[in-house]
């Protein structure tokens, strides 16, 4: 029997779903699974017991909060797809702000009619079996995790910082140039596209296991203001462990 698969999206940019479409999913995977729920790609969607459910996006409305509990109930394996699901994503910057003022700035007198919850990452709401990190995810990570899951293997975690990817690309070190960079504490395996394009790593995949944040902060404080360090960690994975503290001003 073909595995039953669902892809759900909460509030987000849908860029990780675009990366799924950019991956070998359509060409290599689609024929071998029963895709029961994928609102972006098909009109007939149904709830069943899913073998694997991918959940993209942040929980930002009460409706979405109910939805993720429902997804968990129906799914054998839940995979958080991308940094909004894993770490709250860019919209979780609002968690550090006065949300009333923020809504008033955007919606004026109608601010009260808008619901924007305090954004929790998916693992703080339901049990998540695997995380595919990144803003956006890289297609290769998705392909690897999917093939591991369908083969009954446990997907392996990346254990090296982005610096390893960056060095292997032969890039000059951003930190040595005096640019604030999250590479040393960030979860690698992305191929370091940002430093390769002349920009610093902004830690979109969250921290690697046991990051040396104290050493990183010591380095950053020599070259950057407190505000710049806060901005760096309060960006694409603001609710990730440790990033949350630094982004919240504990440094």
């Amino acid at each position, binding site marked *: 029997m073909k595995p039953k698969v669902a892809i759900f999206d909460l509030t987000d940019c849908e*860029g990780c779903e675009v990366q799924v479409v950019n991956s070998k999913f359509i060409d290599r995977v689609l024929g071998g699974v029963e895709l029961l729920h994928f609102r972006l*790609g*098909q009109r007939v969607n149904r709830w069943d017991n899913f073998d694997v459910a991918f959940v993209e996006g942040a929980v*930002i409305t009460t409706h979405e909060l109910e939805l993720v509990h429902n997804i968990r109930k129906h799914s054998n394996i839940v995979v958080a797809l991308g940094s909004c699901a894993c770490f709250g994503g860019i919209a979780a*910057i609002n968690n550090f702000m006065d949300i009333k003022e923020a809504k008033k*700035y955007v919606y004026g007198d109608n601010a009260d009619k808008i619901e924007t919850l305090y954004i929790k990452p998916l693992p703080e709401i339901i049990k998540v079996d695997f995380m595919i990190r990144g803003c956006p995810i890289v297609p290769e990570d998705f392909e690897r995790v999917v093939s591991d899951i369908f083969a009954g293997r446990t997907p392996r975690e990346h254990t090296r910082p982005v610096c390893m990817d960056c060095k292997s690309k032969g890039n000059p070190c951003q930190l040595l140039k005096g640019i604030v960079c999250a590479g040393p504490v960030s979860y690698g395996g992305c191929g370091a596209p940002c430093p390769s394009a002349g920009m610093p790593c902004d830690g979109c995949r969250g921290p690697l296991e046991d990051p040396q944040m104290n050493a990183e902060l010591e380095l950053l404080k020599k070259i950057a203001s407190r505000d710049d360090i806060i*901005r760096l960690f309060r960006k694409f994975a603001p609710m990730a462990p440790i990033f949350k503290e630094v982004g919240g001003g504990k440094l």
Partner: protein
Amino acid sequence: MIYDEFVTQIEGHGKIHFDIRDGKVVEVRVEIQEGSRLFESFLRGRRAEEVPQMSSRICGVCPVPHNLAAVQALENAMGIEVSEQIKMLRELAIASQIVHSHALHLYVLAAADYLNVSGISEVYAKFPEAVKRCIRIRAVGNRGVEVVGGRAVHPINSIPGGFAKLPTRLEMEKLAKDFRSIINDCIETFNMFASLKYPRFERATEYLAIDDGKHFPAYSGRLVTNRGLKFEAREYRNYIKEFFKPYSNTKFCVMNGHGFHVGAIARVNIFKDRLNPIASDLLKNSPIRFPSDNPFHNNLAQALEMVHYTEEAIRISEELAVKLKDEERPKQTKAGTGVGVVEAPRGTLIHEYTVDENGIVRGANLIIPTGMNTTNIEEDLYAILTENIKKPKDELKKLAELLFRAYDPCLSCSTH
């Protein structure tokens, strides 16, 4: 009668609600229920260099125009003039983006409507050649964005003043070759969409696009309409008004008090005489004529644009392959407020930022193509439901969805 499910095969979460009483359409609502991420608010306090990357996160389907509208607005605010080759690279990024976004919409989202299948799995099972064509086109479009911006989804290195890292002439040469390899796929796409049967419906509409005085719309210009309205980007607030509707997290827009339409059909309707040669020839022999007031023809306009922008990408990358050179990035010369306008796949996009003398963003306002189209979508829905009122409810539901989807709405963008 209430149709209360999220519409499938569109970007983001929205519902169409209509009430029919005594044989009359009494209410139509496009209810956009995407969560509000409040971008305009949290971009305040960020450095100008990081804002284009952050703005691109508004939409993973069309990150390039958000990145570039931000770059252009920030440059206007900060008094930065960029070189001709930087503008060309940006036009190349827009062309690449529109090619692959239209391919996604036409094959993955809209095709099912016209081929009478349920979605991507069935399109793939029954029309494998079409899906492979889509994959080839998208790969090259993505490649174009990646070469210029450093990554396909959410470009990295595009910042005020230019690019943190410029591509090489060799990359441009390869890119030109890549784009040449998909021109026939794009022509096939046009032929496929020209042969489809679109619902018969017409409503006189005002169309808006940007005009740089020379090219088919892409990266910069003032705003013009098919009815002769012309204004500068910085004057947008005098013409385009945003307002709140209690059932939608997206603000609705009107221009001079009424609905208007942006997107592929608007660009083709106004500027069809500026299409590149192959696209222009295809249009001459097309069974469907432009200008068209049938919103379903937006899908054919998208297919036509895939040909045009592919030709454009070939032209620009060939030219840059021989003349691209290293340059210094110009720096901030003033503080102030600036507006940027670009063409996104789904239509004209406006970003506005205020930047202080330290390069920190202090204010933001973003007007998104789907937000601009909302009023027009409701007006079209009202008209098409009224014309077809005798049809069974299920068919009306289907027709309403088909119309909504033909606009290629992006609700993640429009709510932001």
